[in-house]
């Protein structure tokens, strides 16, 4: 057991203690915030696999997350509710699945959806593909509104069982981090990075480009699908406005701010967006400062975020982390004599 392993175990232990404290002492709103951060990070990390490591700029994950969200809801809602509110085939109506299974199935369904929806779009060039992937979101949103028998339209589904807690959220987050770490350092991962830098070159060097791209898509969809499922079991509702284009852009913004192609990037981006929104929310509500009352200015948060986004794109386009991992800032990695400090894409 070397120093690195000790540090890892130590950090995990600290995290476990922090989570326990949070779970015990934080109430409602703040506890939700902490869990939400984990879920947002999971989604960001998932999108990073496709958009970051493989450099396929797809915006369609909103639509696939919707599929996962509705699936997990339908799988876990009590049959009585389903019977009353929806028009489902009998087997689906009666279906009641345990949470872990629901998570996995939702993830898999997201994968299926992404392959069916996005594969035909693959033959389109760069910007056309982006447009088509945007369209997926709008189409799915519209379908969700209109297929009332399945989704209850824009009234949405409610009283979804509250399965998500802090342990599930962070447990899965750690799993995802670990999985991506292993992925990036595997042969497959190196293939993805090669594709992201120069697709033709990668192909010539023997990387099965199309196959890898599809797998990367699938992995990204799976992870975001699980994130969607966790989210649904946290907020306990699901409606067509969830995971809309606005949400998609927020996630993309997180990746842009934090930096794509790294593990820390999405985490930092998620943190900044979540915390930033929280900090600025009171400003939006209106407050009293030094005796002057500032009235509520709705929209301020978004303007601020937008400005931040533009400034970062101009001055630090690779994101705040500039393509490096958090680990490179910590001293111990240098003491070990590793050259971890400066590699561009690390996992």
């Amino acid at each position, binding site marked *: 057991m070397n120093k690195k392993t000790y540090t890892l175990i130590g950090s995990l232990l600290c995290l476990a203690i922090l989570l326990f404290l949070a779970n015990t002492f934080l109430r409602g709103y703040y506890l939700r915030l902490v869990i939400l951060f984990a879920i947002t990070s999971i989604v960001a990390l998932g999108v990073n696999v496709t958009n970051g490591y493989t450099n396929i700029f797809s915006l369609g994950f909103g639509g696939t997350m919707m599929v996962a969200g509705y699936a997990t809801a339908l799988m876990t809602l009590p049959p009585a509710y389903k019977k009353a509110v929806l028009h489902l085939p009998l087997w689906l109506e009666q279906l009641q699945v345990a949470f872990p299974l629901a998570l996995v199935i939702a993830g898999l369904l997201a994968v299926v959806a992404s392959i069916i929806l996005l594969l035909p779009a693959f033959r389109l060039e760069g910007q056309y593909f982006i447009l088509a992937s945007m369209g997926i979101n709008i189409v799915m949103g519209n379908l969700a509104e209109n297929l009332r028998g399945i989704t209850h339209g824009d009234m949405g589904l409610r009283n979804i069982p509250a399965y998500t807690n802090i342990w599930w959220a962070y447990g899965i987050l750690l799993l995802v981090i670990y999985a991506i770490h292993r992925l990036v350092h595997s042969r497959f991962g190196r293939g993805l990075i090669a594709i992201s830098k120069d697709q033709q070159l990668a192909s010539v060097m023997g990387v099965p480009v199309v196959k890898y791209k599809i797998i990367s898509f699938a992995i990204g969809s799976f992870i975001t699908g699980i994130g969607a499922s966790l989210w649904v079991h946290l907020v306990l509702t699901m409606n067509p406005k969830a995971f809309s284009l606005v949400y998609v852009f927020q996630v993309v913004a997180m990746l842009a701010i934090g930096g794509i192609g790294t593990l820390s990037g999405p985490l930092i981006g998620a943190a900044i967006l979540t915390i930033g929104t929280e900090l600025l929310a009171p400003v939006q509500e209106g407050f009293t400062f030094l005796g002057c009352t500032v009235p509520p200015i709705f929209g301020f948060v978004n303007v601020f975020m937008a400005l931040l986004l*533009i400034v970062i794109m101009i*001055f630090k386009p690779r994101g705040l982390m500039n393509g490096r991992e958090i680990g490179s800032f910590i001293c111990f990695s240098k003491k070990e004599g590793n050259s971890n400090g400066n590699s561009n894409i690390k996992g």
Partner: protein
Amino acid sequence: MNVLYFLQQLINGLSYGSILALLAIGYTMIYGILGLINFAHGEIFMIGAFCSYLLVSFSGASFWTGLLGAVGGSVLIGLLIEKLVYDPCLKKNPEVLTVFIASFGASLGLRNLFVMIFGDGRRAFPTPEYLEGIIITESGLFLNVKDLLILAVTLILLVVVTLFIKYSRIGTAMRAVAYDPTAAQLVGVNSKTVVLLAFIIGSALAGISAVSYGISFGIVNPSMGYLIGLNGFIAAVLGGIGNVPGAAISGYIIGLGEILFVAFLPPAWSAVRPLFVWALLFIILFIKPSGLFRPNVKIQ
């Protein structure tokens, strides 16, 4: 199938198509020359509408002054965005993702800025009395004066712009830069001039489109640019990147298509309206991945 009803919807479709056609040109010009999707174009449209609205409602200006104000406002904002967002971004980091995000940031920022100042509510667009008239033909067709005006103005503009692009020196230069900016430099074209001109023309047309929208739909609000902008962009893509006449024609196709689609759909299905555009896009891109007409950029 009522012929009268069909003709009525046809006029509606042409009017709506005019709004889209003008917007689409702005998208396709910028896209062709700079290679970027100007998400903020919808906001340029929106700000033009607001300029007109403010001038008429609060300064008592006439409708035509308001129109000029819309054009001026849109052009101003367009140039500002070019100078403050796109120019620095492209100079330092021309990667697709980066510029895309900056473009989106500009759109989001402007939209929410106006939400901050004016609130998200809808305001009534001041359409002058004389434009509210209706002409009733012998056959019983109801023609809105404003629809006819919109159609006439748009068609004239389209002809002017198309002729300009095709025959003028700098118009040809714009097409040349869209295809090969390096070679264009070598014959003496200053690409900066071309870019500014593209923004000016595109934004001006967006301003006119905005006023058309205002008198047609009667409302102004900060989010108005978002969805219609997206439709305008789809028209630009359908028309072939950088192809101005193509974008305009596609704008009409989408406008007509959407109106006729909804008109002949059973009422229960009307919520599916936004899907029409996307379905059209998917079908056309599937058959012809580069769009209906020949794009103006080098096909790799």
